């Protein structure tokens, strides 16, 4: 959809070879401003059609709608975080959890993604990774390997302070909620 006007402009300038180079650079810049592919999109698109996997994708447009219908009486911390989210991808499976976890870790480019935190607790490995440009975190990647393999990618303006607040509010009912999640998936 975005490439059409770009293609048109290329054809106009076909004769100018020099300008083609400049144009290519410009297009690169333009392309970068349009939707950065998150980790799951990049590395794990092959699994998106695999029946053993549960795949969830929430687009930026959907998030704008979500923020509209969010009730005013809901948890403010959560609301704050949702407000800045632009995309969410979830990839989860109960098969070969360790193998997938290892594969995911190896595939992720450490230059792009920085490890924020690693937790190992009762046979479950958890890893938090972030991708940031300067001071702003663009993507938060969560990897879980244990009883189940989970890969979650949050795209948007991510503020770690807000996430910490959110975690705090969850802590109180946290364990219960986690059990609920497990039940739903079964």
């Amino acid at each position, binding site marked *: *959809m*975005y490439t059409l*006007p*770009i293609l*048109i*402009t290329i054809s*106009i*300038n076909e*004769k*100018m070879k020099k*300008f083609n180079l400049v*144009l290519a650079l*410009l297009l690169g810049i*333009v392309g970068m*401003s*349009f939707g950065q592919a998150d980790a799951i999109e990049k590395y794990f698109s092959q699994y998106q059609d695999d029946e053993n996997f549960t795949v*969830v994708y*929430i687009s*930026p*447009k*959907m*998030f*704008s*709608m*979500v923020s*509209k*219908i*969010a009730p005013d009486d809901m948890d403010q911390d*959560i609301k704050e*975080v*949702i407000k800045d*989210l632009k995309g*969410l991808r*979830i990839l989860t499976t109960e098969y070969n959890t360790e193998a997938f976890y290892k594969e995911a870790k190896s595939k992720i480019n450490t230059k792009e993604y920085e490890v924020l*935190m690693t*937790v190992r*607790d009762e046979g479950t490995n*958890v890893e*938090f990774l972030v991708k940031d440009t300067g001071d702003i975190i663009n993507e*938060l990647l*969560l990897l*879980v390997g244990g009883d189940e393999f*989970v890969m*979650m990618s*949050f795209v948007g303006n991510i503020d770690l302070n807000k*996430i*910490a607040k*959110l*975690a*705090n*509010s*969850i*802590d109180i009912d*946290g*364990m219960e*909620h*986690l059990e609920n*999640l497990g039940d*739903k998936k079964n």
Partner: protein
Amino acid sequence: MNFNHINDLLELYFVGDSSIAQEKELKSYFNSDQVATEHLQFKSLFSYFSEAKHISTNLDFNEANLIDELLEKYFEGETEISEEQTLKAYFSGNNVEARHENYSSLFTYFTKAKEVSFDKEIQPEGDIDDLLEKYFEAQSSIEEERKLKAYFNSGTVAAEHKQFSELFEYFSTAQAENLEKGIELDLNKKAKKGQLRVLRRRMMGVAAGFVLLIASVFIMKTNISNDDQLLSEAERIEAEAALETTMEALAMLGVQFNKGTESLENMKAFKKTQILKQ
């Protein structure tokens, strides 16, 4: 002298039948003050004759026998041109001696002969025809062609030559065309200007392309962030489902996050005790 008599004399004179005595009579009449008005037109003619005679009379008085000597010289072929001219002037005058009269016809012939050659120079039509023939056979020299050009450029072109006058006029204008060679420099300038214009057009095209690109980017970006419409019912349901999923995801995130921070909390407590100890 009466009027009619003068008229008779004039008649005789103009048919060339007047005797010298009669001509003398006319001369004296015109020299007098009693010239009739009808005869006044002829007065200048006869005054001329008296002057001419006056010249010749000078000759006669000063060198009476000179003519005899000159004649003798002439018939021996020993006269110079100036002497022959003297003889000629004498014989063309009216005061030729009786004994010289049989030679007068000889010297008047020479005058006439000279006049004939004069005529030839005025109208050299025969020459022009020869030159034209040579020209059309491409055998004329440059000098001859110049003669032709001068002839056609003059105002006196014969009727049968008029058809060629345009041809020779063309040659003179063709010569003039060389002046226009100077314009080529201006054409070069114009060509350069033209090239500049083409370049400018191309630049305009490229600039237009860039503007188009930037405009499209701008439009796309504004499209994404433009969402002031109310959601439909279906969209509502979908959005709610999405919200739920998001909250669950965030919950998991929080839980895992807490696992990590828990250990940090332990560290904090550990540090405190350490400080206390010290």
